[in-house]
C-alpha cells in the first residue's frame, strides 16, 4: 500500500538528501563517513533469490518479497552483516591487499524515487523512524574488463536521533538469481 502523501514535505526532502549523500559517500569510497550513517544495531542483508512460482497463481503477494528470498537459517544470503561486520567489510578494502578492490572499482549508484512506507514519531525530542523503499542501480567498472550493473530494491528502516538519520535496517533485494558479477566487494 502506498501512502498517498509523504507526510511532512520537509522530511521527505531531508531523506532525499540523505540518500543522495549516502550514495555519494559510497561512490567516493569515504567508508568511515558512511559507517557514521549506520545505527549501532544496523541489520544489513542481501539475500539470495531463487526462481519460484506463487503459492496461488493470482497471489503476487507470496510471489513477491520476501517469499522468494533465501532469508532463513536453511539458506545463505549473499551478505548478512551487523555494524562490526560492515566495518570489517569496508576496513578490509583499505589493507592494500584486498586485491578485489586493488585498483578500486569505479561505481555509480542511482537511488530511485523514495517511497515512505511507514513513519512514526517517537517523542517530542524529534526522534523518529521511517521505513523507506527505493530502487538501486549500481554500475561498477572493474579495471576495464568488467562493467556490471546490479539492480535491486532497497527496503530500509531509518531512525532519527538527535537530529541525525541513521540506517537501522537494510534489505537489498536483487533482481538476479545469479549475481552477474565476479564478486560483491562493495556495499549496496
Amino acid at each position: 500500500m502506498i501512502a498517498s502523501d509523504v507526510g511532512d514535505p520537509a522530511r521527505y526532502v531531508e531523506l532525499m538528501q540523505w540518500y543522495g549523500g549516502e550514495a555519494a559517500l559510497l561512490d567516493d569510497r569515504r567508508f568511515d563517513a558512511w559507517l557514521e550513517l549506520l545505527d549501532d544495531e544496523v541489520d544489513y542483508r542481501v539475500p539470495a533469490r531463487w526462481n519460484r512460482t506463487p503459492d496461488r497463481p493470482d497471489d503476487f503477494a507470496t510471489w513477491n518479497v520476501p517469499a522468494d528470498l533465501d532469508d532463513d537459517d536453511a539458506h545463505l544470503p549473499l551478505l548478512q552483516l551487523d555494524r562490526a561486520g560492515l566495518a570489517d567489510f569496508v576496513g578490509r578494502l583499505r589493507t592494500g591487499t584486498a586485491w578485489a578492490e586493488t585498483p578500486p572499482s569505479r561505481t555509480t549508484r542511482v537511488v530511485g524515487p523514495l517511497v515512505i512506507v511507514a513513519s512514526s514519531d517517537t517523542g517530542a525530542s524529534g526522534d523518529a523512524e521511517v521505513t523507506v523503499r527505493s530502487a538501486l542501480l549500481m554500475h561498477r567498472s572493474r579495471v576495464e574488463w568488467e562493467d556490471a550493473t546490479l539492480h535491486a530494491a532497497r527496503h530500509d528502516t531509518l531512525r532519527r536521533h538527535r537530529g541525525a538519520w541513521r540506517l537501522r535496517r537494510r534489505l537489498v533485494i536483487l533482481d538476479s538469481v545469479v549475481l552477474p558479477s565476479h564478486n560483491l566487494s562493495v556495499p549496496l
Partner: protein
Amino acid sequence: MNVHQHLVDPLDLVSPDGARVDQRVFCDTDLYERELDTVFRRCWLLLGHESQLPEPGSFVRTSMGEDPVLLTRDRDGRLHAHLNICRHRGTELCRVDRGSATTFECSYHGWIYRNDGRLVGVPGRKTLYYDELDTSDWGLAPVAELDTYKGLIFATFDPDAPPLVDYLGNAAWYLDIILDRRAGGTELLGVQKWRIPTNWKVVSENHCGDEYHVGFAHRSNFAELADPAHSVPMAREIRPEVGHGFGVFLFPEGTRLEHTVGPESPPALRAYLGEIHDEVVERLGPERARMGLVHGCVFPNFGLVPVFNSLRICQPRGVGEVEMWSFALVDRDAPAEVKRVLRATALKTFGPAGSFEQDDGGNWSDVTRMSRSARRHRVPLNLTMGLGHEAAAPGDRGEIGLTASDINQRGFYRRWRDEVTR
C-alpha cells in the same frame, strides 16, 4: 586446406607429468566442447545433497556440466535425475529452483511427467495422436547412473562409468572427515550463485591444491601477520587419486577437537566440538580425528573449503565463464545455535562477498583473460612446486606433498589430459 589445422591436441598442452600447462587449455572453444563430451559426460558429477530433498515429491533444478538436470524424489523416496528438457519439442520443463511436486507440466504444449520421469499426460493423446503414442517411449531422459555418498548425490551420463565408490577411491576416506564424523551426517545450506568470467579448470585447480596462494592472495585476512606468506600455516597436500586433491592440517596426536579452532571462536562452537570429540574419534579413528580438511576438489568440479564449512559446484557456462554455486555444510544434529555459527563462518569468508572469495574471482578472471594471448605465444605455466618430492600417503591412501605443493594441480591436469583423450 586441412580443416583440422586449428584444432589443438590436448597431449601438446599438458606435459605428461602435469608440471607444464599451456594456457590454451583455458580459452580454446573446440577443446571446451570436447570437455563437455568427455569430462562432463563421463565423470561422476556432484548434483546436491539429500537434505535438499527431504521428502517424497521434493525436487531441485540443477545441472551437470551445461546440461540442465531435474533432481527429484519420487513417492517411494527414490532419487531420480533426468534432463530437464521436455521430450516433445525440447523446452525447459521445470523453471523453479526447488520445491515439491508430484508431476511437472510443460509450459509449451502441456505434456505432463511424473516425478519419476515417466510421461503421464499428453493433451489430445486419443484425438490428435490417434491413441498411437506409446508414452513409455517418451519419458524424460535419465542420467545413466545416480548414487549417493554419505548424503552427497552424484550422477553420471556414462553407462560404463565405474561405481561411484571406485570413482572416489581414496578420496572417500578423506571426505568422511566432514561427511561421517557424526551419526546424523550433514546437511547443506544455501545456495549462493554468481558468475565469474573464467574457465572452470582455473577454479578446480585452485580448489584441489592451491595452498600457495592463501598467504598472498588472501593476505588481507591475515593483516596482523608480519610476513603472511610464511606465517600462515601451510597444509600438507594429499592426492588420494590422480585428479582429486585435498589440503589437510595435521594436528598433533591426541589434539581435542575444540582445540582445532582458535580461542577467539564462539564459545558455543568450542563447547559443541568438546561434546562431540569422543563420538568423532570413535567414528573416524584417531588418525583422521586429528586431520582438518582445508580445501579440496573431487574431479572435475566439486570444490570444498571445509575449514570454512563451504562446499561448492563450479558449473561451466562456456569456455570462459562459470556459475559458482556455494553452499554451507553443517552437521545435521548440531544445535541450531552452532549451525548458525558454522553458517556465519562460511558467509564471512566464502561466497561472492566473502573476505576470501572476493579476491579469488579477480585472479581467476585474469588467468582466463590472459590465456587468449597464449593462442599465439606458447609460454607454458609452471606447476613444478614439489615435483619429485611426493611421498606415499600413510596407509597407501594416495600420495602427499609434505607442505604446499603443486602435487594436486599436476594430478588434476594429468587426469584432465587422460579424460579428454581417452
